[in-house]
């Protein structure tokens, strides 16, 4: 029953898309500056249909209706309610439906929020949005239908992978999708803008809201994923440069580049084409990321070969997207002369874009190179964290410098009278680091330079803030984001130098001394929970230098559905450091492997990322801080 209803609503959504394309095309030929009321109505109904179809899948999950293959494969009656709900988007089919729902809602919002924009421009945007919607819907219906039926109906489902049963991971995909899909709006708007020869500055004003929104959600989404990886995957890392992580980071670089460059377009009506290219690239990169993750091509070229239909469809869809954008771009791109002043604010924004594109390409090369190499030469290599750090970290130094330099520059002119002050700030940053390392004796040159320049950025941004107070003009959102970025790099660097870890094997009741710590595995408790059994270790860590105790309880969990063993880290956080312990049993022995880590500034790393996001969010608020 639910299956039929679901299919019905999806089909109706698709039909609405076709109708919208048709009526928009008709509307384009008509005179008048108003969009026909009919289009608004269809758009609202379409939105209702998708939400209903999503709601039906949700109901199927909540009531464990195993007549749907999708529910059977990804859910289980004993699963807690929250994870029944998040199970909806914890798999390919369901997440594709969520993607479409957001796409439809955003199209409706775009139509309603930009009443002042040109009619033709809005109609063309709507057409492109609905072409995208139809594309994804056809994919859903033909290849990845979450409403496919199963007969005979099984009594019990297969369950959701326990490491996915987690609050941070429950909200991670929806947040990222808001980011990914948000970029579809400026993709469509960019194409529409080219065709209708829309005014660049107006185009910038229209898409600014969407760029900021998608960037904000992308930032927070990446953060949620990172926090999840930190405490759930049990290795105490928070970013592994895994291809899946990379595919969420790549659009983020482009969105960040866009946030900066639309300022030029808005203020000067310049670099129009570049903003168009960035807009098109961002969504293309989002779909590419989805393609890489969903096709299975990332794990191995061979999984892709086993089930190529899914990846193939996205690949074809992607090619059509790219080639038609290229066609529209070359057909309609106007030629315009730009006006630039060396060392002006615009100049530094272009520098930002140069670095963003560079970072993007490095991540892209690192992600794709092993795949390409394996396809052409059958040689398998791994590209992991060391590659990204070695290639990108040195470039952070000039980048941090430019981030602090840019905001001091003036629009349209090269004037700058802060040379002496800049020098003093740099001198001061170097002194801070030298004093700091006189005591700590860290000898990595690169890290030290990065620290110097992150402090430089922090100090410069604080000075910038005071200058703003003097001038009574606030650009709070820039100050917060830049400051938080400086702190982020600073804390990450400190974290990478001062993280300590100990790997030890202990018997129940045993204790061991390591450097300043005494680590004791006091005893073990076995407990039964709703859908798993757990072994809890009582670990006492005594810091002999400071004479303090910490009690931690790492767990080994054995889930019943599907039967999986997971390791739950026990983390004690405070502002300055996290104490992190994981435990696993060594098979065939009475020894337990304990991993004990001290990780400085973890909370502050998360906070920095939150504040980077908050900065962008402030821009969305209507009260702009003008004189």
């Amino acid at each position: 029953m639910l299956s039929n209803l679901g299919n019905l609503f999806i089909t109706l959504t698709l039909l609405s898309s076709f109708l919208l394309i048709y009526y928009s095309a008709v509307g384009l030929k008509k005179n008048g500056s108003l969009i026909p009321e009919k289009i608004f109505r269809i758009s609202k109904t379409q939105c209702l249909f998708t939400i209903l179809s999503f709601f039906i899948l949700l109901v199927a999950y909540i009531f464990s209706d195993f007549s749907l293959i999708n529910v059977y494969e990804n859910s289980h009656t004993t699963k807690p309610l929250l994870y029944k709900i998040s199970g909806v988007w914890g798999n390919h089919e369901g997440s594709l439906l969520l993607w479409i729902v957001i796409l439809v809602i955003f199209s409706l919002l775009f139509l309603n929020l930009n009443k002042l924009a040109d009619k033709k421009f809005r109609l063309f945007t709507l057409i492109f949005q609905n072409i995208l919607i139809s594309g994804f819907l056809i994919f859903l219906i033909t290849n990845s239908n979450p409403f496919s039926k199963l007969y005979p109906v099984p009594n019990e489902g297969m369950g959701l992978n326990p490491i996915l049963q987690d609050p941070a991971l429950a909200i991670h995909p929806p947040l990222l999708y808001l980011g990914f899909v948000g970029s579809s709006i400026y993709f469509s708007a960019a194409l529409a803008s080219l065709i209708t020869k829309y005014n660049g500055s107006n185009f910038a004003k229209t898409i600014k809201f969407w760029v900021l929104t998608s960037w904000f959600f992308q930032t927070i989404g990446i953060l949620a994923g990172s926090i999840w990886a930190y405490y759930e995957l049990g290795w105490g890392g928070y970013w592994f440069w895994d291809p899946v992580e990379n595919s969420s980071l790549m659009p983020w670089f482009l969105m960040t580049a866009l946030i900066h460059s639309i300022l030029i377009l808005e203020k000067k009506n310049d670099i129009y084409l570049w903003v168009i290219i960035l807009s098109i690239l961002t969504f293309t990169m989002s779909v590419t990321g989805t393609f890489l993750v969903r096709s299975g091509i990332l794990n191995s070229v061979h999984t892709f070969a086993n089930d190529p239909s899914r990846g193939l469809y996205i690949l074809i869809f992607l090619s059509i997207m790219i080639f038609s954008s290229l066609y529209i771009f070359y057909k309609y791109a106007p030629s315009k002369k730009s006006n630039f002043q060396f060392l002006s604010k615009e100049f530094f924004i272009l520098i930002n874009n140069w670095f963003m594109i560079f970072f993007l390409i490095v991540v892209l090369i690192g992600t794709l190179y092993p795949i390409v190499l394996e396809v052409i030469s059958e040689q398998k290599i791994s590209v992991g964290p060391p590659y990204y750090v070695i290639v990108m970290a040195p470039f952070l130094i000039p980048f941090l410098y430019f981030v602090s330099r840019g905001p001091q520059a003036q629009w349209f002119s090269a004037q700058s009278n802060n040379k002496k002050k800049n020098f003093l700030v740099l001198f001061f940053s170097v002194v801070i680091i030298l004093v700091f390392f006189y005591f700590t004796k860290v000898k990595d040159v690169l890290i030290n330079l990065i620290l110097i320049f992150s402090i430089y950025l922090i100090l410069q941004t604080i000075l910038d803030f005071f200058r703003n107070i003097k001038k009574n003009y606030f650009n709070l959102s820039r100050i917060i984001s830049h400051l938080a970025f400086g702190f982020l790099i600073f804390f990450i660097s400190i974290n990478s130098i001062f993280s300590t870890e100990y790997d030890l094997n202990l018997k129940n009741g045993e204790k061991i001394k390591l450097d300043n710590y005494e680590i004791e595995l006091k005893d073990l408790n076995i407990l039964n929970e709703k859908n798993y059994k757990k072994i809890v270790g009582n670990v006492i860590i005594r810091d002999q230098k400071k004479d303090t105790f910490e009690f931690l309880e790492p767990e080994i969990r054995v889930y019943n559905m599907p039967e999986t063993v997971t390791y739950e880290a026990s983390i004690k956080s405070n502002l300055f450091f996290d104490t992190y312990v994981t435990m696993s049993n060594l098979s065939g022995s009475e020894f337990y492997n304990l991993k004990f880590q001290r990780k400085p500034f973890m909370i502050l790393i998360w906070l920095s990322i939150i504040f980077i996001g908050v900065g962008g969010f402030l821009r969305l608020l209507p009260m702009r801080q003008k004189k």
Partner: protein
Amino acid sequence: MKYTKILILLFSFFILSHSYSDEKMKYKIYKNLRCLVCQGQNIGDSNSEFAQTIKTVINDKLDEGLNEREVYSFLAEKYGDWILYKPPLKNNSYVLWLLPYVIFILGALILFIFLRKNTIHKK
């Protein structure tokens, strides 16, 4: 002014040179190796038996007096380059390692040409 800046930087370069303690080196090596039986985990983070074995091998090799690079090449010889998260620079990885720098310079060139064409010169 510029030269003083450079001097300060050079100065900080010289007093801060590179070294790792033995204990830290061990964990650094763990982190740079792929756990071959796991899904995208390194040796240091994995709980698998394979990882435990490799850890023991690394500890033994370090005790024998091998340095970081020698440990990597020993393991790569046994398990292939797939185990190394940092691909060694050779025929199949020149593009991987050098392309980013080419891109960066290319970006600079594009930016430079664009600006030269479109800059207003004050007189």
